[in-house]
């Protein structure tokens, strides 16, 4: 399953990130690292990006990017 499919308020665990390296590094620096829990908390007004909570931080990620983040 990928991050964009995870329903709001359900917890997932990051398994693998398939983006290019630059995006991957940026995700890493926000704490989106293998084994870390992530929860979608809200959609933005137009539905994309969605807002997630990860390591206590609130971050917005486009669905296009979330589609490349595999979760358990």
């Amino acid at each position, binding site marked *: 399953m990928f991050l964009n499919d995870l329903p709001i308020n359900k917890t997932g665990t990051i398994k693998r990130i398939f983006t290019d390296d*630059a*995006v991957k*590094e940026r995700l*890493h620096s926000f704490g989106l690292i293998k084994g870390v829990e992530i929860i979608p908390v*809200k959609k933005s007004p137009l539905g994309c*990006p969605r807002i997630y909570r990860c390591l*206590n931080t609130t*971050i917005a*990620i486009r669905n296009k*990017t979330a589609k490349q983040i595999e979760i358990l």
Partner: protein
Amino acid sequence: MSKTIIVGLVANPNTGKTSLLNSLTGMNLHVGNWPGKTVEKKEGLINFRGNKIKLVDLPGTYSINPYSNEEKVVREFLLAENPDVIIQIIDVNFLERNLLLTFELLSLGKKIILAFNFNKEARGKGISYDTDKIAEALELPIIEIEAHIGANKNSLLQKILEINNSVYNNPSYFGTIAKGEDDISHRSALDFIKQKILLFYKSSGNDRKIAKMDNWLLNRYLALPIFFLIIYLLFKTTFTFSAPLVNGIDYLFSLLAGIIANLNLPSFWSSLFIDGIVGGVGSVLSFTPLIFILFLFIAILEDSGYLARTVIMLDRIFHKFGISGQTFLPMILGFGCNVPAIMATRTIHHKKERMIAIFINSFMSCSARLPVYVLFTAIFFPKNATTVIMGLYLGGVAIGLLASLLLSKIIKINGENALIIELPPYRWPSLKNVIKHAWWQMSMFIKKAGTLILGAVVVIWLLASLPWGVGYGSSDSILGHIGQFVAPVFRPLGFGHWSFAIALIFGLVAKEVVIGTLGTLHGVSEDGLASILPSLINPAGALALLVFILLYVPCLAAVATMKKELGSWKLTSVYAISVMAIAWVVAFLVYKIGLMLGLG
């Protein structure tokens, strides 16, 4: 005399770094740009117990990883300038994520002090932690501060002296998180945090305040109405507050002009001083209240955490045009004045997107263009004036979006802005910080763009006055000859009369000057134009002229600001030539279509 200790301030964005810098340095701050970059560089010198400490503020960043596309300035500074000590400010509410940057810093092998900020807020929220134990586990000194009130700043400075005199040792655990020579494994770093640090740090989990505020401010139906209400109030107050200041400045300059006129200088000199220099300085200064107040509001939006929310509101639409929601706010500000709007693109960290945002900003029709629209539509389209003006505004936006789509395909640097952004907690901005921020922006504008604007205005004055003795800006002046020379270029657009060409050149000083120039050239007041203009152009030509005014090179202040923000004459010239071409082509089409629709 001891050597100056160089200290680099590093932090994630929104951790209170600016507050700390302000409380440590007071007003004693030097602001400039990093060499070759348009990123702000702030430095402050402090004397503390007989020691000189130079604080260098580095742009807020989530990573200094060599592969990341983020602010390269931070890594370059830390490697090249070799600071004696690094202070990392940590928002203790988000300890785990902040520590990821700490571990990246460790890979540089420099002395590090951690400054825990927002302790009161975190403990009030129910987060409990033992700073001494965390310091012990990290093998790094930690000072608890409250940056906005300057608490514990002396302990922090004292710690700088201590650490500076100590011998550097890599923490014993560093081998377990290192990856290669200059990088770390985020995964191992996080494991280390979980096993060794979270023993002494207990977080309550959810942050209800953020969720509650976001439910309103990012509500599906309310988000945009709230945003536009805020922007409306922002414009309303900006223009209400700056109008008396601008008028006051104008008044002082008219007094000055009166004094100079009474000096009985030879007419060349008195005209140079009054029309050229006083006029030029006046046009620079008339922007300053606007910039100051607008940046006061932008700083409040940014520091309160709202700016990041505006970014995601319309991202979905902007993404289709190759840019992100980060361009939204600068575009909206452009409707007020393109100068601060172009400066506001500094909130966009992605280089390519920032360039696009700067390029397309002048298509947002600024308030100086409105009087021209109002005058012409009243004469030529009295029944549909509002529709025509609305059409011009929307047309500008449409062309701006199309241009960004095109530019995002043409510009071949560092890919697309993936827009992964933090939505920081909502916090009350500190008045001192926002005033200081607005003050810097204003002084940078005067220093950098101001000199360019002044020079350009004097050149235009000279062209309008020479050969000496002709009427100022008349058809006999050099400018007049240039106008007559280029007028045929505008003939296919329906406004080939030489007076329009001259007015358009004067319009470079400021768009509203177009009206005054036409009045002067035809020797009539603004009302008199109503009877003269219809004999010079037909409605289709008038429409084409308005479209041209919307799209062609913006005022010199905006161009000077672009040059400053792009950091390149070449790009600025490419921009100027392209918008001239775009303006010509679109105005041509509008004229032809207008004729077909019977506006001839």
